[in-house]
């Protein structure tokens, strides 16, 4: 998608730097989430990092562009989906006899596929936290601004 320099947002320098780094930030967030049960970090930190990568994009390229790309309803819908996923994992625990019982095998301790439902919960929390914070960001940043022009 061709992003013109005079579109809004910050100067061209910031835009080019953002174009380079936003992908890396996103990848770092995904790494933090997936390795939540092995190394420090987890659903929360990873989700916030992913939300920050989107915020970085919006701040660099201006609010109007962002609203077209990501409808605000889509963001809050994703947040509800993340929350329902996490509650689903909790309710699936009933198959093992109780709320929040882990229904997956624990795998080998230090491998990526280990820790029962912890990686799944991490992913659900990441979707929820990421979408939620980006939703707050969009509401505070973009909508408040456009409302000012209306008045």
């Amino acid at each position, binding site marked *: 998608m061709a992003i013109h320099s005079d579109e809004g947002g910050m100067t061209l320098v910031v835009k080019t730097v953002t174009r380079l780094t936003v992908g890396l930030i996103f990848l770092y967030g995904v790494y933090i989430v997936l390795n939540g049960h092995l190394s420090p970090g987890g659903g929360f930190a990873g989700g916030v990092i992913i939300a920050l990568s989107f915020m970085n994009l919006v701040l660099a390229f201006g609010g109007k562009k962002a609203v077209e790309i990501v409808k605000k309803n889509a963001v809050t819908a994703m947040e509800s989906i993340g*929350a329902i996923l996490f509650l689903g994992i909790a309710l699936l625990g009933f198959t093992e006899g109780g709320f929040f019982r882990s229904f997956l095998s624990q795998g080998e301790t230090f491998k990526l596929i280990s820790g029962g439902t912890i990686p799944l919960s991490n992913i659900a929390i990441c979707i929820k936290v990421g979408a939620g914070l980006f939703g707050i960001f969009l509401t505070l940043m973009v909508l408040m601004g456009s409302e000012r022009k209306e008045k």
Partner: protein
Amino acid sequence: MIELYILLALMIVGALAAVEMKNLLSAVIAVGVVGLGLSIVFLLLKAPDIALTQLVVEIVAVIILIRATLNMKNADDWLGPRPLGAVMGAVFMALTVWMGIVVFRSLPSFGNPLMLVSQRYLENSAADTGAANVVAAIILDYRAYDTLGEATVLFTAVVGVLTVMRRKGVKSHGDPQ
């Protein structure tokens, strides 16, 4: 652990500066610095999970606070303290320091916590949950119900912000049903 005391002292000075500063934007940045200092202190205290989360969450908080300082006239920058509040605040400070000296004596001293329940977490979290990161094991398996409540808190805050930021709360009579 001398560097811990230096950092804590700098954070207190930073917090006082943030509170008393005239320009609001620089006050917000001062709070950001205090949050950064806190993240480093967490690293010193061997809590990497929390340092990462604190750093990242603090960046989001600073972004939101800076957004709040954008749309205001700078007439509101320096507003003197409320007299009654200042007195109550000073009394609270004295009370806190007194409490610190008298009360914290009965806590286990800094450096050897009463590892009553946590020792069992450390011993058999690998066997019980298979996760290497004990903190992740606690928040997502032993006390996962806490994290469900906590995720709900964030969900409530998002819906709350959407509710408060609605352009029109009460329908004017002309509105369709």
